[in-house]
């Protein structure tokens, strides 16, 4: 429990950046005293040939971007096979998450599935119990949709107070990609639902056999079975070759390595919807089937891993989303909630999808307390953490969508704090 000067996970990088900026935060509009060697020197890439085509048959980011990676919190879980890591949302822009940076949550490690041996079975309360190969599934009418996927435990470590210094850790159990696949309704219609069909139970092919209960109304409304993300096959970490897409609902239900869907008349009350993913209230009772992800937002820049480097004109950036529909508005405060300014939503603004927001502002080097609050098209207003605690207590782990506060200090460092 020793106090540190900075607790960021990019300490070396940050120290370098701050030093390069002149020891403190750079001042705007400075005149150069000497010519810039970045201009006057001939760099090697100005002079020599680079690698040829196919040097990288599957392209990778510049080595200068090696800090941009998923990270996990070692003390959080008992083993890496049943654990989670976090999307580096402070290093990304726009609203699409690159496939290799989408956070991972596994319950029995990454199943390495041979697509030639993968089958999807539909059984239970259907007219025809069916089996599909991957090739069969790709012959159904197809659809493409952008959706966010958020773990219900995202921000769960913050229920009792500010704990982790970095939006990657406080808010990184989220990603947003374009899915390609087939409407689940099409698949269920092909099997023919019996009138007694009220629930489905998707099940994974991994060694946890992940299973959840999904009400038939949702299954027939907007669920998909997806085999591609951002234009390429699903990554193994994301359920290759097939996963369920449950728009706006908690990530645990988006069963990866999907191999079976049973249709039934009652929910299963599987382990992941009883022992886990139920919300314990202060009186000891618990909410269950808490599926929807409420509206939420986070300022990704500045944040503890992405400090302020310059005085003068700056761009504050962040993400907002709602499982209930489109983001209607995001307000930002720089003074701890005394005054709020409506941020610019940079489109597209899609339902159940990450939405990027920006706020242009001038920074004079004085400390800031920055927050964002999202409002969705249903009128849902992102609550404060204390509002949530007053309703739910601090034992519920899941569904913490409270407003996050970052403290920007005069030297540009940023810390996770809570305020009055």
């Amino acid at each position, binding site marked *: 429990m020793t106090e540190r000067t900075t607790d960021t996970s990019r300490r070396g990088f940050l120290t370098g950046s701050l030093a390069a900026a002149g020891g403190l935060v750079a001042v705007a509009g400075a005149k150069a005293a000497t010519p810039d060697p970045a201009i006057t020197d001939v760099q090697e890439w100005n002079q020599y040939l680079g690698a040829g085509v196919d040097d990288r048959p599957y392209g990778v980011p510049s080595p200068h971007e090696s800090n941009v990676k998923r990270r996990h919190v070692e003390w959080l879980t008992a083993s890496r*096979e049943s654990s989670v890591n976090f999307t580096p949302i402070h290093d990304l822009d726009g609203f699409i998450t690159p496939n290799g940076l989408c956070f991972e949550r596994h319950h029995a490690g990454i199943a390495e599935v041979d697509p030639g041996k993968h089958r999807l079975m539909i059984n239970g309360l259907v007219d025809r119990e069916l089996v599909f190969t991957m090739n069969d599934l790709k012959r159904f009418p197809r659809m493409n949709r952008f959706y966010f996927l958020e773990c219900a435990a995202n921000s769960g470590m913050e229920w009792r107070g500010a704990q982790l210094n970095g939006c990657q850790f406080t808010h990184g159990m989220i990603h947003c990609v374009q899915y390609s696949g087939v409407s689940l309704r099409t698949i269920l219609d092909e099997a023919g639902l019996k009138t007694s069909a009220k629930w489905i139970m998707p099940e994974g092919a991994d060694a946890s056999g992940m299973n959840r209960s999904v009400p038939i109304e949702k299954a027939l409304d907007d669920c998909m079975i997806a085999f591609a993300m951002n234009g390429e096959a699903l990554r193994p970490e994301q359920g290759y070759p097939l996963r369920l897409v449950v728009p706006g609902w908690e990530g645990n239900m988006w069963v990866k390595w999907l191999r079976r869907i049973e249709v039934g008349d*009652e929910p299963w009350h599987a382990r992941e919807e009883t022992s886990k993913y139920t919300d314990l209230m202060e009186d000891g*009772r618990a909410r269950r089937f808490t599926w929807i992800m409420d509206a939420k937002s986070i300022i990704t820049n500045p944040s503890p891993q992405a400090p302020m480097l310059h005085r003068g004109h700056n761009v504050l950036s962040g993400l907002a989303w709602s499982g209930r529909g489109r983001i209607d508005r995001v307000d930002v405060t720089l003074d701890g909630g005394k005054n709020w300014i409506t941020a610019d939503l940079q489109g597209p603004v899609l339902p159940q999808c990450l939405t990027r927001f920006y706020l242009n502002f001038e920074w004079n080097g004085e400390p800031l307390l920055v927050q964002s609050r999202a409002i969705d098209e249903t009128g849902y207003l992102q609550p404060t953490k204390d509002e949530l605690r007053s309703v739910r207590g601090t034992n519920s782990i899941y569904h913490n969508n409270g407003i996050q506060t970052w403290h920007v200090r005069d030297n540009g460092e940023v810390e996770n704090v809570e305020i009055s």
Partner: protein
Amino acid sequence: MLRFLKVLTVVTMFVLGGHIAHAGQYELGREALPKEVAAWDIDVRPDGTGLPVGSGSVIDGEEIFLDQCAACHGDFAEGLDRWPVLAGGHGTLASENPVKTVGSYWPYLSTAYDYIYRAMPFGNAQSLSPDDVYAVLAYILNMNELADDEFVLSNKNFLDIRLPNEANFFADVRPDTPSISEVAPCMVNCKESVEITMHARVIDVTPDDEPGAGTE
């Protein structure tokens, strides 16, 4: 015309009598064979649907548990390190440190059957026989003081066991905070003063990329 009808009859007979009885809109996939469904249909529901025939005693369960489960869950299902605690925790759910075990929290015993068979032992899933699973469950009930030492659990008495916390789950009530139609969000001069009440750095548990930099 006659020839056409003949062809039609042959086609109809083939479709009805052959293996393409499937009549979905796209005629994609094929009908699952009963043995295929049986191989994958392992789920168990609270009403007992899906429970296989079998039985197991607390005594047998103790032996299996010590051999297959105790390395993570502890000899008495008390949980080692950060692995799940399966027994105890009664009366803790409304406290500062709730302990959510099969006995204190889980609503249905069927959940434990379903989960143990499909996912346990960790790293060797679906390796236990139905008798093994009944026995392990009997032992877990015993460790939770919900069954005596002589108890034998089977598909026949399974539904007689009710877990104590079953009634304490209720449906989602969200949204549970005010919407903008109830409270218009304030934009200007919303409060007079602001104080920092908590710093993450005091707790200092954020991971660090530098090797050897302990964070706990």
